[in-house]
């Protein structure tokens, strides 16, 4: 995903860096900050004092002892009936039953989410569509850490050091909510929560399948005094689409430590690293040279929580993200490397993005009917990508933000008022405010109606505001530089004003129904414009009106059977200026059905069916309607204190369909994939 945007938006002649340009590149060395997090985890694994189990006798102290608050305000997920914006929760059972190998695959289960595989490993997920291969309009958080890239936008899903087996749940907020989720929570937010170290077993797992699928995972979880920790390492690879050059291979390692300092204080530390290579090809002759890209991605995160009681919590979070992507190849008229005739142009596409973020949050309940959360944060985004920011060693964007939200049960339990706002100041667009307001009214027990209105902004990413790319005709002297991208800057942020009426009902038999009607006004959508001379620029060009209806039903049909159904109807009205075809970027009708059934205590079968009408991604041609059926059969074998598991997954048992590109353009046909997973868990 990373370099292709540049290949297209920067035009047909990507830049040449050449010797003689400033080439100090941050980040080739491992950053000190990340080492610090890793060292902290290792050090905490060997604490000086070990709190052994009490050898004293059973007494009244066991009854009357002080206990730490575990399910604190921020750990408790908000019930659907109280949320200010519609939300879908993908829980562990759904993650396993779906047979998904990656997070974007799981997002197909969310009504209104448009998911497309641009290459075998670059997948775009965007709520209500309006996405090109970068999917810039979503906020994505992993344990509160924002992972969209500041340079080109979008989320490099395949580069994130995260094992799906370590994910506890995924909450998808279907609508803007900057007050709670921060900047870029524009069309929606994907909030991923990983499992607490204390509740993870040791595990080994291997997966083998068609299309070169070879995955492996090993995890060790342990406890040392007041520290629970987990170490996960793994490998994933596959060959992508059959007729494309898009094999991806990665190795990763992550660590998490949950340290309980005392009754009130906990410290959570995380560290992750991933590296790998991805095969690439650009799409336009004569530049469609097959080459490779190498990535390194790592992060460190620390969060300190002070939980006074279950309604009162203070937390401070610090994290650092680092992502580096290297692509080097040569282009010329049809001659692949290593042959180097005189006028072949070496291309160097290195992009380094870094983010450092500090945030403070305080949650409190002054009265039983009022819950407040407020906080502030500072972020520094830094990018080194001479291919996109010619002549700049580094471009930066600093963001300051303050946020607050209040949940007030005006009439217990009938009426809940939810108000929140975020104020953000950044270097590109200055200061913006994103307020939201919602009222949840309980019609009768178990049935709630919600009306919400929310405003948010999407700030331009660095390339949209500061991009300057082109080609040197005469490297290395570069006396003649032909620009292909000159961002004129001065962009206004995109804005969305979303209104929704929703209903959440807890029906008979434990069924949960969630429906919403919405009307979103989106302004100042940023699109690419090309001057007569062929130079590209980013401008605020379009407005769009998105209206529609969504439904989600979670039904337990029998004690052994559960069905999760999703459906979305959408209509996007836009002038589609500058060939940015928003109006057809989301299918009119789309939906999914996940059916899980326990055949016996140890055997489970599930199927997932997905459907979407015709649509197109913004920069691509139209895709026809598509259907997909995934099947899974899994069995568990308990042996003493451990458990074995085997699973067979068939992805797309139906005919092949086109992902992202229509067949006339590129061969992105998703045919049938089969893989087998074998694992063993030790409790």
């Amino acid at each position, binding site marked *: 995903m990373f370099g292709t945007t540049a290949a297209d938006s920067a035009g047909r002649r990507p830049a040449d860096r050449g010797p003689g340009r400033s080439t100090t590149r941050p980040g080739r060395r491992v950053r000190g900050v990340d080492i610090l997090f890793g060292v902290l985890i290792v050090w905490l694994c060997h604490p000086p004092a070990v*709190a052994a189990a009490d050898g004293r006798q*059973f007494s*009244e102290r066991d009854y009357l002892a002080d*206990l730490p608050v575990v399910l604190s305000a921020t750990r408790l997920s908000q019930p659907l009936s109280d949320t200010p914006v519609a939300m879908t929760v993908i829980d562990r059972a759904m993650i396993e039953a779906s047979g998904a190998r990656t997070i974007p695959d799981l997002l197909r289960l969310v009504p209104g989410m448009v998911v497309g595989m641009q290459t075998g490993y670059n997948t775009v997920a965007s709520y209500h569509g309006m996405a090109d291969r970068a999917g810039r309009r979503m906020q994505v958080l992993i344990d509160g850490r924002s992972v969209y890239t500041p340079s080109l936008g979008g989320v490099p899903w395949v580069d994130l050091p995260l094992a799906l087996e370590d994910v506890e749940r995924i909450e998808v907020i279907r609508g803007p909510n900057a007050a709670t989720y921060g900047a870029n929570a524009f069309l929606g937010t994907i909030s991923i929560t990983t499992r607490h170290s204390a*509740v993870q077993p040791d595990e080994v797992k291997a997966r083998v399948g068609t299309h070169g699928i070879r995955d492996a995972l090993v995890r060790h979880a342990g406890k040392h005094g007041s520290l629970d920790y987990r170490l996960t390492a793994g490998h994933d690879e596959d060959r992508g689409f059959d007729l494309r050059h898009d094999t991806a291979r990665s190795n990763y390692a992550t660590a998490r430590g949950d340290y309980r300092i005392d009754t009130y204080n906990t410290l959570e530390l995380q560290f992750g690293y991933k590296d790998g290579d991805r095969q690439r090809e650009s799409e336009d002759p004569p530049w469609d040279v097959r080459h490779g890209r190498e990535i390194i991605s790592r992060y460190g995160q620390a969060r300190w929580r002070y939980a006074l009681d279950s309604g009162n919590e203070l937390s401070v979070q610090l994290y650092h993200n680092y992502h580096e992507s290297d692509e080097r190849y040569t282009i010329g008229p049809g001659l692949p490397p290593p042959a180097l005739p005189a006028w072949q142009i070496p291309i160097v596409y290195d992009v380094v993005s870094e983010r450092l973020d500090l945030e403070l949050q305080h949650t409190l309940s002054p009265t039983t009917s009022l819950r407040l959360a407020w906080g502030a944060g500072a972020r520094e985004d830094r990018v080194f990508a001479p291919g996109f920011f010619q002549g700049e060693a580094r471009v930066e964007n600093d963001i300051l933000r303050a946020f607050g939200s209040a949940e007030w049960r005006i009439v217990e339990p009938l009426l809940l008022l939810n108000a929140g706002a975020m104020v953000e100041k950044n270097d590109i667009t200055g200061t913006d405010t994103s307020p939201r307001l919602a009222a949840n009214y309980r019609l009768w027990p178990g049935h709630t109606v919600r009306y919400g209105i929310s405003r948010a902004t999407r700030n331009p990413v660095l390339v949209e505001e500061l991009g300057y790319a082109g080609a040197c005709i005469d490297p290395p002297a570069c006396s003649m530089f032909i620009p292909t991208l000159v961002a004129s800057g001065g962009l206004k942020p995109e804005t969305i004003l979303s209104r929704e009426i929703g209903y959440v009902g807890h029906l008979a038999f434990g069924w949960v129904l969630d429906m919403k009607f919405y009307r979103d006004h989106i302004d100042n959508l940023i699109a690419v414009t090309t001057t007569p001379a062929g130079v590209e620029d980013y401008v605020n060009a379009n407005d769009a009106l998105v209206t529609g209806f969504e439904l989600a039903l979670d039904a337990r049909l029998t004690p052994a059977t559960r069905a999760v159904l999703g459906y979305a109807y959408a209509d996007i009205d836009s002038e589609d200026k500058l060939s940015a075809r928003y109006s057809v970027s989301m299918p009119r009708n789309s939906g999914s059905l996940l059916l899980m059934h326990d055949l016996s205590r140890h055997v489970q079968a599930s199927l997932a069916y997905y459907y979407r009408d015709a649509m197109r991604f913004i920069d691509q041609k139209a895709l026809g309607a598509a259907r997909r059926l995934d099947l899974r059969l899994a069995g568990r074998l308990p042996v003493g204190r451990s458990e074995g598991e085997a699973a067979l997954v068939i992805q797309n048992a139906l005919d092949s369909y086109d992902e992202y590109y229509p067949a006339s353009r590129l061969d992105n046909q998703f045919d049938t994939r089969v893989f087998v997973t074998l694992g063993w868990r030790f409790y």
Partner: protein
Amino acid sequence: MFRERSGRVVLRSCARYPRAPGSRRASWVSGLALGGALLVAAAAGPPAPDREVWIVLSENGGVYRQVADGIAATFAGSDAARTTLRTLTRDEFPGAMAGSPRAGLIVSVGVDAARVSATGQGVPRLFTLLPKASFDALTAGTAGRSAPVSAVYLDQPPARLLRLIRLGLPEARRVAMLFGPASAGQLLDFEAAARDQSLTLQAVTITEERQLFGALTRALEGADVLLAVPDPQVFNRHTSQNILLETYRRRIPVIGYSEAYVEAGALLSLYSTPEQIGRQAGEWLAAVGRPPAQRLPAASHPKYFTVRSNRRVARSLALELPADSLLARRLGAAPENMP
């Protein structure tokens, strides 16, 4: 009673001997003597207290003090005025036993105090604020001892706990429980109580904390609720985190045994506060003091209790619970089988 008797004797004796002629002066003198005797009897006041009750605290302060205050408050409201309460810490106890006056009854608060006062030399004893398992351990092998012992346990009767589940979570059928070495003795009682409430008990017993996570996973399989009873290896400060996180992950509510547990994340807790324990002990003491002289009731679970819920957890799990006071009332109203 003595006074009554003596009065009757005097009058009877007066009636037996009618006044002889010429003894008017003698009867006036005996009338004065009678009046004087009655006056002296009246002025002597109530008879000296026939006992002292000692309250021995495991520690000076905190919950132990609260129990002692609960006893004293209940006592002040009763008519057992011939008993004085004397509160001492367990360090002071051996010295007090050596001195005088002697204790008529010893109330211990907590396991440490119970252990110290166990060698009470024939004095009736009331153990309070301790688990049944601790009481059983302390009194094992002392059957047939001279002085009666009794207790107000801290643990709730299994019947009441299972009934709470029935009332608060009417759709729950399967109750998960984890037992450790200290609590294993209660397994059969809980099974019986569950049967009475038409609930199925899914219990796993472990011997050391290391086995907890696996046992928890097995116990929670298909369960609707987890009922926690304290045990140093199973439900304690360290493990509460694992247990609450894992049960919350599976959307299984936890019934806890203390106020701290419900604050930590249990859905409901059923417990008796130190004051409530003290109140019951005070009532028992007052009852023993009234004529006719009574023995202490048999050791039993607490009569007074509190129900508390965590509304945030309830909302997060989309559970609608009746009000705490309503649950408590309905629990109190149900007939108790006090062992």
